[in-house]
């Protein structure tokens, strides 16, 4: 009972605030919520889209979670996912002749390595130069945008397109989507990869010696140092893993959906990953529901734009913001509420 109230209260608070915002905008909150929910879950196709939008958020959410557990705040998942995608597309376009599993596996590894490279730059500077990871990773985001822009427009440009995008990858590099279950929706096997990664990260953190070290370093850095742990190596490795996970976004986006890399294709998956990780409170298993929530908002608000005259898809960002505030306030509020609850049950 107590726990139920504890989880329900933030939800009620969030709904109240968002309702208020919608009322101020002059729309009917009931219709708006209905259209978001309907947009996200109304048909097999819309569920497929929701899953498709959630998949990259699982990758970036995990990326932030892993870094968070080592006490690092990785704000650079956005840049890491771009570099991961770039190396994926570079591999696919340069080694066109591959076939079968080798092609896809190679592309996935390329994405992992690209992201890992970008992440370990942050880790390297943090571990051996003491540069703050937030500053470095945010600056590397801009470098990655520029790099991707350069390569897409100069090296891999699609000559038959006016848009800033690369040529399409060969058929061998495409992974199957789930047409049969979710017609016309782009959700694909990358979603399975995402679920697998969640399990893998959980296992790494809680069952491996590496994860033991990482969590120890993150939560008690001074004790870890004095126990003789290789603290710097772990920081470097964690950032590499974090970056690699973010890099996998390219698998969903390029191999599974557009088959080419568009400049600036990410609507901020890397930054939403931060929100997902915080909502999941650093627990890998909770990344899935958190990512689904944000994926649902993403998809639902697209439909909202069509249904409503007054609301735009930006409502999704408003809701995300309110959720973040609620998450941040929750430890404080729940303590207060617990006391109230105790008083109330006693009398």
């Amino acid at each position, binding site marked *: 009972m107590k726990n139920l109230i504890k989880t329900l209260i933030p939800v009620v608070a969030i709904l109240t605030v968002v309702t208020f915002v919608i009322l101020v905008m002059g729309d009917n909150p009931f219709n708006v919520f209905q259209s978001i929910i309907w947009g996200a879950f109304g048909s097999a196709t819309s569920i497929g889209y929701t899953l498709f939008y959630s998949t990259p958020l699982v990758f970036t959410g995990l990326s932030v979670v892993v870094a968070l557990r080592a006490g690092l705040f990785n704000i650079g998942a956005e840049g890491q996912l771009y570099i991961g995608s770039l190396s994926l597309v570079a591999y696919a376009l340069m080694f066109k002749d591959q076939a079968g599993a080798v092609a896809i596996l190679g592309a996935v590894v390329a994405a992992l390595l690209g992201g890992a490279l970008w992440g370990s730059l942050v880790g390297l500077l943090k571990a051996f130069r003491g540069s703050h990871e937030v500053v470095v990773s945010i600056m590397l985001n801009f470098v990655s945008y520029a790099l991707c822009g350069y390569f897409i427009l100069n090296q891999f440009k699609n000559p038959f397109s006016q848009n800033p995008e690369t040529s399409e990858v060969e058929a061998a590099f495409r992974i199957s989507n789930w047409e049969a279950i979710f017609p016309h929706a782009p959700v694909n096997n990358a979603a399975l990869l995402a679920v697998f990664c969640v399990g893998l990260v959980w296992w790494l953190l809680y069952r491996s010696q590496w994860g*033991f070290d990482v969590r120890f370093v993150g939560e008690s850095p001074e004790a870890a140092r004095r126990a003789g742990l290789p603290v710097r190596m772990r920081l470097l490795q964690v950032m590499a893993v974090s970056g690699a996970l973010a890099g996998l976004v390219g698998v969903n986006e390029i191999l599974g959906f557009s088959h080419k890399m568009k400049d600036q294709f990410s609507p901020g998956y890397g930054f939403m990953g931060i929100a997902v990780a915080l909502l999941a409170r650093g627990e890998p298993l909770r990344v899935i529901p958190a990512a689904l929530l944000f994926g649902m908002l993403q998809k639902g608000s697209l439909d909202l734009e069509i249904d409503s005259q007054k609301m735009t898809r930006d409502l999704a960002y408003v809701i995300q913001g309110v959720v973040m505030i609620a998450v941040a306030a929750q430890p404080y509020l729940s303590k207060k509420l617990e006391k109230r609850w105790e008083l109330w049950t006693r009398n």
Partner: protein
Amino acid sequence: MKIVFGLYEPDPGSAECGVYLNGRKSKIRNPQDAMNLGIGMVQQHFALVENLTALDNIILGQEPMKRFNVIDRAFAKNKLQGLVSESLKVPLEANVEDLQVGVHQRVELLKLLYRDSEILILDEPTAVLTPQEIDDLFSFLRDLRKEGKTVLIITHKLDELLALCDDVTVLRQGSVKAQLSRDQLTKEALVKAMTGRSIEKFIKPTFQPGAEALVIQNLTTSAGTEERLKEVCLSVRQGETVGIAGVEGNGQSTLVECLLGLTSYIGHIQFNGQPYPHKTKEIREVLNVGYVSEDRQTQSLWLSGTLEENCAIGFGNRLARYGVLSKSTLHHHAEEMLKGFDVKYDHLEQKISELSGGNQQKLVVARELKGRDPRFLLCCHPTRGVDVGAIELIHQRLVEFQKNQGAVLLISSELEELLSLSDRLLVMYQGRIVLEQTRENFDLKSIGSAMLGGQP
């Protein structure tokens, strides 16, 4: 005490529980309320602003104002002059960071008097003081008592209670175990109330030390480090405990950091005739040096981890199989390690932060002694903030370790502990070893004055 001072809020209980002041129940929601009621507290860790003067620290929060919101320092000074007796002289204009720890405490006390506190709470006030400073403090507290102030002192040192107190309340595991008034106050009664049983006076047996284990020659650290070492030479033999006394902040922490490979140094360190490694990993995992840190919560323990995890710290490579740490391995390891160390816990997957300080420390000692089975133990403040029962156990284990030809370097601010455990005692002052005495001719007076930088 933190509840009385309004730092913590008590859990709501029945109507009659709460804090009563002069017979009236008072509501103290925050430190401001407490101060308004005339309650003042000196925390165990002082709350001073390092780069302000002593005077500014005292008036901070209650600055007397002249016109145009200018701070009236002259007024404050006058008021303080009225309060200050000879035993409480403080250089008001000096920056706090330039003053000694003992003076810091006087500044804290002045803070309370300046606020007209009637009830003074002191949490472990003697933890950082030298014997002379303790005497000064006590005579000052006696003066205060004569003036009609109430002094509440929290301490785990029995002699202090006997020397100072009119009434003693013994708390153990969150409840009152005994209330003793002056005429009932004996050491035996106190110990009994604190531990639930009586404890024999601990007398350390003497052992025949073996060959030299740790030899430090001319250890000097660069000027950059705060507590700089200057040509420190010392040696510890197998089966010997060497104590290092000194007021905190005179280079002890730097010495520890050198021996852990955390600070670079000039000079030579040898262990059993071999050069001492520089890397922390090698020191801890190859040379297998045991280490009890001065601050267990941040330097020894993984406070948000479980008991199992804390027992596994430093043994990752030994316990893991192909990089996997299985639950059952951790469990068995912890179970095995804690045997014989009397650590009280509910289950091994409990968070270590839920344990009392004494139990946490026993776990650390178990890990570093039994788990690691070292030849050399670097032992800093092993019984700081720990109950009497745990102190007894830890001391016993240290002696056992020494009996098995282990070498111990013991750093402590507790002179009594050093005197009872060490075979040789060194005094450190401003990064130098200024005095060395062997067990047969320990002399409290010369040790105390050496700690303050005087000539022995």
